[in-house]
């Protein structure tokens, strides 16, 4: 799920880059510092919309860096337990499927894949396939329900299940975005 959220950050600007266009400088530095990182509680920072407040800077003794306290609005992505998401398969192994939803890497254990999909080792690449020949392989788009999420310092990881009605492979022609089923 996506959020707009005001976050706080101390931005340090080294003295040699101080100059007239300080707001732009702070914005650039902030982008470098926080974009595409995971903030533990709120999730993955996708974009910075704007800087809300920029305090007056002070000089940090010792380094001479100018320090600014910035409050900015960020677009965050955080998957939740029980959420239904569309994901793309990256790797298929015998143990299950690895897939990704944007920055989040997900794993589907084999038990969480409908039993109609059988593991076919002999195919190149090895994949899960139904008797009708529908394949689950890297690049396939699937709809899954998230079972658990962990927000670690550097990465978002989650485990998911496909073993439910209305979940499964998304065919190209049906791929018009997320449709919630009645249970949600």
């Amino acid at each position, binding site marked *: 799920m996506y959020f707009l959220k005001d976050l706080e950050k101390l931005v340090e600007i080294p003295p040699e880059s101080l100059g007239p266009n300080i707001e732009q400088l702070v914005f650039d530095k902030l982008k470098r510092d926080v974009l595409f990182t995971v903030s533990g509680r709120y999730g993955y920072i996708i974009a910075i919309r704007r800087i809300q407040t920029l305090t007056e800077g002070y000089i940090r003794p010792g380094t001479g860096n100018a320090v600014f306290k910035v409050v900015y609005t960020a677009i965050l992505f955080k998957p939740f337990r029980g959420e239904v998401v569309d994901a793309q398969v990256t790797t*298929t192994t015998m143990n299950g499927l690895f897939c990704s939803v944007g920055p989040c890497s997900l794993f589907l254990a084999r038990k969480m894949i409908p039993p109609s999909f059988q593991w076919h*080792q002999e195919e190149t690449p090895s994949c899960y396939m139904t008797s009708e020949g529908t394949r689950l392989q890297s690049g396939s788009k699937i709809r899954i329900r998230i079972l*658990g999420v962990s927000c670690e310092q550097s990465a978002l*990881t989650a*485990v998911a299940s496909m073993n439910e009605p209305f979940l499964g492979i998304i065919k190209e022609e049906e791929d018009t975005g997320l449709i919630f089923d009645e249970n949600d």
Partner: protein
Amino acid sequence: MDCTHDVVFGSLCAICGAIVQDTPSNSGTPMQRATPQSLKLFVSPTEATNQHQELQQHLERSKMLNLVFDLDHTLIHSTNDLANSQVIQRNEPNETKDVKLFTLKTLRQHCYVKPRPGYRIYLKLLTKTFNMYIFTASLQEYADEVALLLDPEQKLFTGKVYCYEDSSDHLERRGSNKPAGSMSNQSASNFGFNLASRRHLQKQLDVIFPVGDPFAIVVDDRRSVWKRNTPVLEILPFFFFYGCQDCRPPSDMIDVWKYPVPVTLSLWSHLQIPTTDEKPDETNCASPAMLRKLHRKLDEYPLIESGLTLLRVHQRFYSQPNFSSELLLPILANLQFSALRGAFIAFSGVIPLTEQKNIESYPLVASARRFGAEIVEVDSPKLTHLVYVREGTEKERKVAGLPERQMIRPKSLLPLFDPIVDGDERSIAAQTRRVLAQLEKGTERQVTVGKVFCVHLLWLIRCMDQSGWVDETPFLLTETEHPVRVEGDSPNAEDRNWEECLARFKESVRLAEAAQVEPEEQNEDSEHSERNSEDPMDSFLKNVFMNVEESSDSDSEIPSDVEATSDEEESGECQRCGESDSDRGEKRVRRVQDDSDDQD
């Protein structure tokens, strides 16, 4: 929650979604890593066993084997010496078409990677028969990049790339006392991404197959980095970037290209490399530029040929009554051992004087013995091949005067190259069948009579690459024809004497290992357990091949003759040749201590 957390992804149980703090499962036994470490997937031992059984069943059903590749010097050569490699790219635009530039973010390094010629055909050749893995002593990022280069469609190696991090992690978890900080030291060195030359990292198949029978063959340029008794098909290391760092094999391996190659060989015209462009020096040896051309030309084949050897091993493996991966080592050893059986070799100018004392442990000698050739003195009546590197040595003159002798050679010699050209799958399969049939024919021996062959060292290398007896003609020293008369059929001399073969194989491995300087005190207890583990294997083999040996008793006469040890040689008596052999012995030219002449 009654979930047993059998499958854990990162820190999450993949079944119930709960956060599992430590990977050890409820039963107290540590979790097994199910995939390369980068995927962060762990499974409980029961789950791992189930999966392994499923994979095993699949392999047996579809007659496949696991195959583990090394990367550096086996499938690719890479360098971070950008300036030098750019010079090479300018000079040889054709050869460097497929050189790729990578940037490694973790090390902030750039490197050029050149895949070994023929890798596409090679991978096509093996996809149907082998389940392929990569196991390299490099960093994950590097390994993944290279895997993507080799397999751009991501069909073969996804989720099967194991690297340094995997093995070090593995060692840690098993409580090994290997230095944990070695990684950071190495990545600080300027050739950090290629860790292949690390002695202390011992590769083992347990990393990839933590439970059960690995069912796997390894293709690597270094046998010594693997744990003992791993079936490793050694392949000539691949060096592409001249003059860059890391472009010479370490001392425990054969460095073919330090030896001169005379321009008088018909090899040059065989390969259509003009020899008139460059003026040879007074010793009639090729200039460095020509040598490089030859090197490039010969580089095109070893990979595909090792693929053919793998297919032969596979064929033999599945013709056994019951499959166990313990069979792979003797099958591979036997196949290589039958390659040069019947060849009695002396070296001239190849082995440095300093190594003459412990000639047995010299890498070239050890490899030659592994391929079934016997190493004899120049004046031995059994001598069939004098392996030289430059013309006009004393040994060569001496050999020229020797009388004709009986030899046991293959019925059909292999050509210099077995070309398998790129094409669709079917054409490659057809070509492979043809070549394999030829290779199998090469194991049938017959008795011939002829003069001693004076062949260049490259002949021996080609034989090792092809695991078969290559036609000597292009490598002969003098232009004169070597007429060889066929004297009679020898029964199929394929070596069925598994025990002896295995013993010889182990001996050569032991000698090669003894020659290496141990970098640090390897943990003694592991050494011990390995030594113990050899014994059950021997008895196992005895049991398995008891029936084979009995059936081959009838045709064992001549093979046993070929196998004559050095003691028998001294007596000059040979069952088959009888009197004539000892007569010939008298005519022998007296042995002269000419080692110093050969060397300079």
